[in-house]
């Protein structure tokens, strides 16, 4: 296969995949560094004032209506309290990158809050005391 070449010789398929993985991991780490320290990403300011924002959190009826993959991730996060994508992936036996994707989807839906401490990005169900 001649998809990718470097100066001297052809890279094997395995080497290409390895290189892609390294790049993805480094992009992932850079994105993580963009997450503000200790501040939740999805804290939206409502027009009616800051006291009562829109409903965030995850109630059990909403949990029941989530697609299976997100439900599994959210359930594990409930049990763990606060966790990194890696912690969750260890429990679900899925790839860290996959879990990271699911967790970020839950963040966009408002059910999960994401914050950074040092170099690590943590997730927890929104409304958890620990994020404050």
């Amino acid at each position, binding site marked *: 296969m001649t998809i990718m070449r470097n100066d001297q010789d052809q890279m094997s398929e395995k080497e290409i995949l390895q290189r892609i993985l390294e790049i993805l991991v480094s992009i992932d780490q850079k994105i993580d560094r963009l997450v503000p320290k200790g501040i939740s990403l999805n804290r939206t300011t409502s027009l009616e004032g800051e006291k009562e924002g829109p409903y965030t*959190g995850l109630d*059990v*009826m909403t*949990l*029941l209506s989530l697609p299976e993959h997100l439900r*599994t991730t959210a359930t594990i996060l409930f*049990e763990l309290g606060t966790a990194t994508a890696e912690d969750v992936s260890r429990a679900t036996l899925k790839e860290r990158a996959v879990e990271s994707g699911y967790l970020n989807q839950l963040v966009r839906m408002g059910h999960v809050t994401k914050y950074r401490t040092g170099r690590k990005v943590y997730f927890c*169900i929104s*409304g958890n005391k620990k994020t404050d």
Partner: protein
Amino acid sequence: MGVTVAVHSSKGGTGKTCISVNLAALLALEGYNVCLLDMDLKAPCLCTFFNRYPKWWLNEYLDGKCDIDSILYDITSQFGTKGRFFIGLSNLDIAAVRQISNMDRKWQAKALKLLLEAKRSIFMNGVDVLILDTGPGVEFESVNAIAIADLVLSVIKPNKISYVCTEQLVKGVYMTLEKKCYLVENMCHMLSIDMSGKKEVFGLPVIASIPCICDIPMKNDTSIIGLTDPDHRFTVSIKRICRTIEEHIGKK
């Protein structure tokens, strides 16, 4: 960690409370430390059963007004069980019940988290089995209880309505929340006793078939039949359920 058992059913009046109380008492009698919580906040009855009207209820805990220890009562000495026997009661006062009925999703989401915290704290204090007596159907409080449970005992009456409704719960709640689930057939005809332990319904094991016996309501009204009548058919059936729960205590 201990094991959490939610006793639930699709329809009301299947015997959940009667079974929960007896399971708790018999496990405590055998030496397990047990905690029984009244998760039927819309129609609480454990306070009446145990004749206790405390200052702090589960309602206050779920409202974030106190910690879990302040709503748990040690009733070990009252029943003389070998293991410790704790209860957490819900307020039957109509104002309290109305308040619960008005709670929104946000409150229920917080309640779920508080229940998870309560469970951790209860097990840290040495409890082996946490039993949750729930209300029937898909009420928020009941589904919250199921969500924090390791095992669900779904009590089913031997009739078409109960089977059809339970099947919906199995598919749409128990399995969706990935719970280990057992069926308990209650109030069945004497003839079906032989089938207990062998039958499977909706792919779930039926771990006991309890016959309908007229003296149960009277004998379990102010005292616990499992403690007063150790050889009663009902007691024998509850002991069988205890064995299944016991298997899970070892596993966790």
